[in-house]
Each structure stands twice: as C-alpha cells, then as structure tokens.
C-alpha cells in the first residue's frame, strides 16, 4: 500500500516536472520566432504546444536510455526517483526565477543520479550510459548546432544577399513557421521522453513493469499532455533572454538557428541521446550570430548561460541527494515523500507569487 502511494506521488511529480520542462523550455522553441516578428507570441506558443504533444508520440528511444542506461534499475526505488525529480524541479525553478535558460534534461538526469548515489553509492550509476549517451552528447550537440547554424546562415547570406530585403525577410519569416514547428516537434519528442523514461524507471523499480519494458501508452499520453500544457503556459523571462539578449537576430538567423536546432535534436533523438534542447538551440542562436559578426553575440549573457549549464548537473544532483536524505529521515514509507512534496509545493507557490508581484512577464512579452 505504502509503495503504491509513493508510486502515485512519483508519477504526479514526474508529470509536474514535465510541465515545468515545457514551461521552462517554451523559450527555446518560440523565442527566435517572436523576436524576429515571424509569429505573434500567443500563436507561436499555441502552435509549439500542439507540436510538442504530437512530437511525444514519435519515438521512445530516449525514454529507453533514461529508464535503462543511466542508473541501475535493480537498485533504484520509487523514493530515489522521487528525490531525483524534486532535485530537477527545484533547479528548474531556481534558473527560471533568475531567467537563465539552463537544461531541464540535465537537471532531471543530475537529480536522479544524485539521489541514486546518495541511496546506493556510486555503483548505482551506469557510467557507460551516463558518459556515452548523456555527457558526451551534451558537449558535442551545442557545438554542432553552433557550427551548423553558422554555416547555414553564411550560405544563406551568400544566396540571398543581393535580393530586396523585403522579400527576404518575409520569406524567412514564413520559413520560421516551418522551422519553429520542427523545433517544437523535436522538443516534444526528446524532452517528453525523458519523463516517460523516469516514470517507466519508477514503475520498474516498484515492480509494476518488467526490467525491459517500454513505456506504457498511458505514460506516453500523460507525458505528452503535461509537456504541451507546460509549453502553452510559457516562460516569458527566458523567452526574453534567448530571443533578444544573446543576439539581436534577423529572420534568416532565426530560421537557421531553429533549423540547426531541430536537425541536431531530431538526429540525436533517433539514436536515443537525451539532449538538452536548451543547449542546442542556444548553440544555434550563438552560431547564427557569430557567423554574421562575432561582436553581435553578447558574450557576457552567453557566458552566464554556459555557467548555468555547467552548474546544472552537479546542482540538481546535490538537491536530489539532499532530498533523498530528507525523505529517509521519515523512514522508507510514504510519509517522507508526502512531506517533501508539501514543502516543494509551498516553495513553488512562493516563487510564483514573488515573480507575479514583480510583473516581469508583461515586460518580457513586449520585448
């Protein structure tokens, strides 16, 4: 009975994380379209959330990686997964609060790894999967997006350089409808699968699924819905950072950044690499800016983002480990997760109330 209660809490927490993932990552998908005037904010966000939902059904390769290749499912318990999720949600909220586009995906994986190490030691971590499928792609993907976007915008300027600016801008704005749609689809398929993977891991740990099971259909549908709702709710603070503070971009740059991001994420998803969509799209944005003029990129802002990226895995791991320690104070039953959930909800409400009082979203929306 107690383990079922914990499983219900884990699933609810995972879906809450999925919601915050969509909420946090809305910026990655729509910021460039909004900042270049290709789409009005509400239209762009509605379109992105719909394609997020559809994208979640495309593949389960990433879910399999998260469920089976990062931590040892034999030693994982639902409480460990719960603590990892709390670590990820807490880090997402901190970075959202300060307007930093850090990685929800790395927060999730960091949180689960941290709580697993706290519970079962380093043996709980599958180093091969963590390094080969998470850490190395985490470094390579934004660099590839940077290079692809840079190369693409360089070629584009050569092709359309002598055309009238009006038709070029209009053309790329239309193109951004397609490229932002592809990016939303890519985001949905890669990021929703991480939640599917974590819920599947918890169900395996709780004895509800076999060790090699794929995510059940209800998990796929619930994850797709949560991330789509989160995306629709939007994160204006990060839209402002991604859309205008890294570079001031034109429609061609927006198109190449989104195209590069979508290509990298979709290709990686196909091979089961749980990438950070945040890292990739920011790599694309910087690449499209740097190819035009190195000084066009506001490297100070970019540097802050890189710092947030570097901190994400260890910070989420530390919070995950701490959360696991706190839940264990109350024993192995459901009391610990219930109390931690109540504390987490209180912090979430306090953070949102404080931000609402500051009125930042309205300011960002008009940027």
């Amino acid at each position: 009975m107690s383990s079922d209660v914990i499983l219900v809490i884990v699933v609810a927490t995972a879906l809450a994380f999925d919601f915050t993932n969509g909420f946090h990552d809305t910026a990655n998908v729509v910021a460039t379209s909004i900042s270049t005037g290709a789409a009005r904010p509400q239209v762009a966000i509605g379109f992105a959330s719909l394609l997020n939902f559809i994208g979640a059904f495309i593949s389960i390769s990433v879910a399999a990686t998260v469920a089976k290749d990062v931590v040892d499912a034999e030693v994982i318990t639902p409480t460990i997964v719960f603590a990892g999720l709390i670590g990820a949600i807490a880090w997402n909220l901190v970075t959202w609060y300060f307007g930093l586009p850090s990685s929800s995906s790395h927060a999730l994986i960091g949180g689960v790894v941290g709580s697993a190490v706290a519970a079962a030691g380093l043996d709980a971590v599958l180093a091969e999967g963590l390094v080969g499928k998470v850490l190395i792609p985490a470094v390579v993907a934004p660099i590839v997006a940077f290079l692809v976007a840079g190369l693409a915008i360089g070629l584009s300027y050569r092709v359309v350089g002598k055309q009238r600016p009006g038709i070029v801008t209009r053309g790329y704005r239309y193109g951004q409808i397609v490229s932002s749609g592809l990016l939303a689809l890519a985001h949905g398929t890669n990021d929703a699968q991480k939640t599917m993977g974590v819920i599947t891991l918890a169900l395996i740990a709780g004895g509800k699924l076999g060790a090699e099971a794929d995510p059940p259909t209800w998990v796929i549908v619930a994850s797709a819905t949560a991330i789509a709702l989160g995306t629709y709710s939007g994160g204006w603070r990060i839209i402002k950072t991604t859309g205008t503070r890294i570079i001031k971009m034109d429609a061609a740059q927006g198109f190449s950044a989104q195209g590069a991001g979508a290509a990298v994420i979709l290709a990686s998803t196909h091979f089961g690499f749980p990438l950070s969509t945040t890292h990739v799209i920011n790599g694309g944005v910087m690449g499209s800016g740097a190819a035009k003029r190195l000084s066009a990129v506001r490297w100070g802002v970019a540097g802050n983002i890189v710092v947030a990226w570097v901190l994400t895995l260890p910070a989420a791991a530390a919070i995950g480990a701490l959360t696991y320690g706190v839940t264990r104070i109350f024993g192995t039953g459901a009391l610990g997760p219930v109390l931690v959930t109540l504390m987490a909800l209180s912090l979430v409400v306090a953070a949102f109330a404080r931000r609402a009082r500051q009125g930042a979203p309205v300011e960002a929306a008009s940027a």
Partner: protein
Amino acid sequence: MIATIVQWKEMWQTVVASVGAGVGITFAFSVGIWGSGQFIELSRGDRQGAATAAGIVALLAFVAVAAAVIVGILVMTQK
C-alpha cells in the same frame, strides 16, 4: 576508457545527419527565396522566360525542403 564508452558510430551519424539536414534545408530554402525574388523582379521587367525559370528553381527548392522535412519525420518514426 572514454574512447570505448563513446558510441562513435551513432555520434558520427548524428553529426553527419545534423549538418546535412541543417545546412541543406537552410540552403535549399534560401535558394527558394532567391528564386522567388528573381521571379518577381524579372516578371516586372517583362522577361517572362527568365522569370519562369527562376520560378521553377524556387518551386523545386521549396519542394526539396518539404520532402526533406517529411523524410526526416518518417525516419524518426521508424525506430
């Protein structure tokens, strides 16, 4: 140790697919915009033959973009 952990084949295929799709689609779309611009300019200048050729180039480029997007999504659903 790292060399044995990294899935080089998958990584390499990911990089090649990303570069091919990202650069290729953007290039093709840019050719489409160029062709559209030329079509409008040449039509105004009463050079119908050249305008038609530019229009065909634009059309082929946009069809190539659409085809690449569809193929990419189909490949995703195959695994």
